[in-house]
């Protein structure tokens, strides 16, 4: 166990939290709860990690400490975050977690960003007995690893595209065109989409894959435009989501339903496309500040702390929900990791994005959802029971 610090309490203690590994234990009353993670602060993963994930960790730790610390079975103990950059490199990521769990022997860990990093960390954490609630891992294969300590918060591909297809069917769509990125995310979503479309009468008039670093989608979009599908589905990442949107606007491709997976839920999307330009665009989104009062509180706190930077309306919510679950677990059973794991696995959790329950590693309580930009806000529009606004049926022209 960690030695209780004998140092005097210094003022502004909370501000020091979240800084780095050597953040001194400034809290006199109780030894800190040490929570470790590695995440991308440099390299290509940074964009996602610094929107959907790390800001939440920092905000959460700050809020907990401001409230007197994390509730550990009734005792308030300050949180000390031990974090480092994984340089968007898997080996560095693995090494960092080996250090956190093996040498530093932190009390808890928080997951890294992205499916690949989670693939690498999950078995390790599982072996060391650390429960992990991953907000940015999306792969059926991760579920199939059947790791008892690993929980995926995001709705898996079948749910997300399932909701999308339900929505399309409900609105009488007959033809769709699909583009998907050439990696695990794109391929899994695409095959889930195929499965979901099978029992419907919807025709796929075009399906094309593209590499992740693509700089020009217009030839593809033009040929899709010629086929005039009622709905466009891009199983895409943020840069290509924006590229596809800009180029669709460029060539005047404006189908009734325009869907692009990741990145639509980002504040960036609205900045780049302007609120009017984003109007009607669909994407992966599961919550916004109207979802619940707690969600609003979170949204406001996040925006305030990070100088106007909004959380995204998809994985940020899951990330926060994961922290809520962890917090509740620690409050209930303390820091005994096996007990935390059992608590997470055995209960239904109330979070800002609604109820979460795990079957194996998978979150099976959160339904698949579809989001849509309406008047500068990304609203949840499908399914109706979690919707924050009504689906707008005809997408206005790009502006």
């Amino acid at each position: 166990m960690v030695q209780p610090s004998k140092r005097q309490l210094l003022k502004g203690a909370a501000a020091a939290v979240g800084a780095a590994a050597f953040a001194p234990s400034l809290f006199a009353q109780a030894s800190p709860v040490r929570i470790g993670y590695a995440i991308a602060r440099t390299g290509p993963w940074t964009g996602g990690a610094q929107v959907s994930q790390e800001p939440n960790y920092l905000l959460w730790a700050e809020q907990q400490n401001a409230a007197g610390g994390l509730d550990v079975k009734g005792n308030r103990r300050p949180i000390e975050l031990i974090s480092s950059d994984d340089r968007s490199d898997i080996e560095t990521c693995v090494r960092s977690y080996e250090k956190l769990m093996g040498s530093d022997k932190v009390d808890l860990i928080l997951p890294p960003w992205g499916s690949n990093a989670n693939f690498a960390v999950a078995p390790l954490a599982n072996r060391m007995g650390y429960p992990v609630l991953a907000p940015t891992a999306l792969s059926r294969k991760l579920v199939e690893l059947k790791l008892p300590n690993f929980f995926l918060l995001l709705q898996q591909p079948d749910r997300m595209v399932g909701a999308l297809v339900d929505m399309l069917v409900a609105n009488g769509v007959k033809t769709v065109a699909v583009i998907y990125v050439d990696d695990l995310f794109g391929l899994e979503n695409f095959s889930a989409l195929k499965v979901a479309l099978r029992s419907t009468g919807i025709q796929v008039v075009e399906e094309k894959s593209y590499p992740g670093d693509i700089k020009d989608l217009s030839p593809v979009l033009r040929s899709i435009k010629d086929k005039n599908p009622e709905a466009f589905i891009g199983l895409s990442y943020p840069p290509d989501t924006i590229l596809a949107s800009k180029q669709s606007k460029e060539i005047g491709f404006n189908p009734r339903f325009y869907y692009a997976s990741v990145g639509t839920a980002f504040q960036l999307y609205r900045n780049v496309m302007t609120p009017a330009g984003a109007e009607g665009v669909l994407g992966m989104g599961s919550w916004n500040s109207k979802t619940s009062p707690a969600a609003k509180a979170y949204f406001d706190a996040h925006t305030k702390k990070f100088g106007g930077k909004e959380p995204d309306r998809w994985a940020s919510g899951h990330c926060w929900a994961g922290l809520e679950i962890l917090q509740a677990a620690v409050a209930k059973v303390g820091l005994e990791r096996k007990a935390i794991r059992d608590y997470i696995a055995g209960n239904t959790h109330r979070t800002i994005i609604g109820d979460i329950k795990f079957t194996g590693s998978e979150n099976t309580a959160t339904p698949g959802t579809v989001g849509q930009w309406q008047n500068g806000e990304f609203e949840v529009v499908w399914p109706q029971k979690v919707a924050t606004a009504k689906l707008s049926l005809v997408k206005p022209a790009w502006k």
Partner: protein
Amino acid sequence: MNDRQVLIRDLLLLLAFAGWALALPHYGSEFVVSMALTCLMYVALSSSWGLFCGSTRYLSLATSAFFGIGAYTSAIALEKMAWLESIALGAGIAAVVAVVMGAAVLHLRGTYFAVLTFGMTELIRHAVTYFEKKVTGTVGRVLTVVPDRDTIYLTVLGLAVLAVFVSIVLRRSRFGLALMGIGADEQRAQTLGVNTRLIKVAGFAMTAAFAGAVGAAMAVRWTYIDPHTVFNPFIGFQTVLIALIGGAMTLWGPLIAAIVFSVLAETLRLQAPQVYMMSLGLLLILSVLYLPGGLASLRWATFSGWWQGSRGWLRSLGSEERKNG
């Protein structure tokens, strides 16, 4: 005589290094061991890169291609084969690819060669992606059969020691001499009877075999591999940087640089990741400008200045370095 003493000194140093690294898991913390693993990975990669690229001055950026090929091989082979067999297979396939690649590009020199090897690495990455997608329907592979950490550590240690050992032996062999001749003046070496084409392809394949073996051994740590992670050009870049900053033509340079960098990376990464990468860049520029022989040459120059004429073996070390450099 002198040469023999240097050989014995080098072998003893290597033995000491191997012994120390071997003992590390028994007393070092988890963190130290995993850091040592990364360090050993770069010792193996950079030393083996220096074997060929250092002495011939062929600047290969294809390390990540061979690393990736090794990684994919072990991902596929481990389901049916034993650990060491998979590693050997990874090394073998990487070497075969290197032979084909080398036969095509090794007649080009300088930046042409560098650019081409880089281009080929990217081509292989995209080809593997496309093939995987078309044939297996997915791009990545999940590794379910995974040996324990000590096995991986010992394997990578073995590869690192082997790479340095081969360097020691090689620079005393005809093969090594031929590589050095190619680096100094390729055509002259040819007119003195060196079949440069054969030697280059063989040297390139040897470097590739090491990179392939390291890739095969390291990939299992990542559970899931896809072309983007295992063919990451950064692995190749970092290998080259470490070798060059350490002194690609020296024996101990890559090893020293790998250790320095691992320590530097771990300490700076925590506080200021960008600063680490920036200082890496700055260090590279400075070393190219002011220390073209690498860190190892710095050590020699300063030492010889201090101890000139005082100790016999030290002088022999100096002349050895000069002969190699």
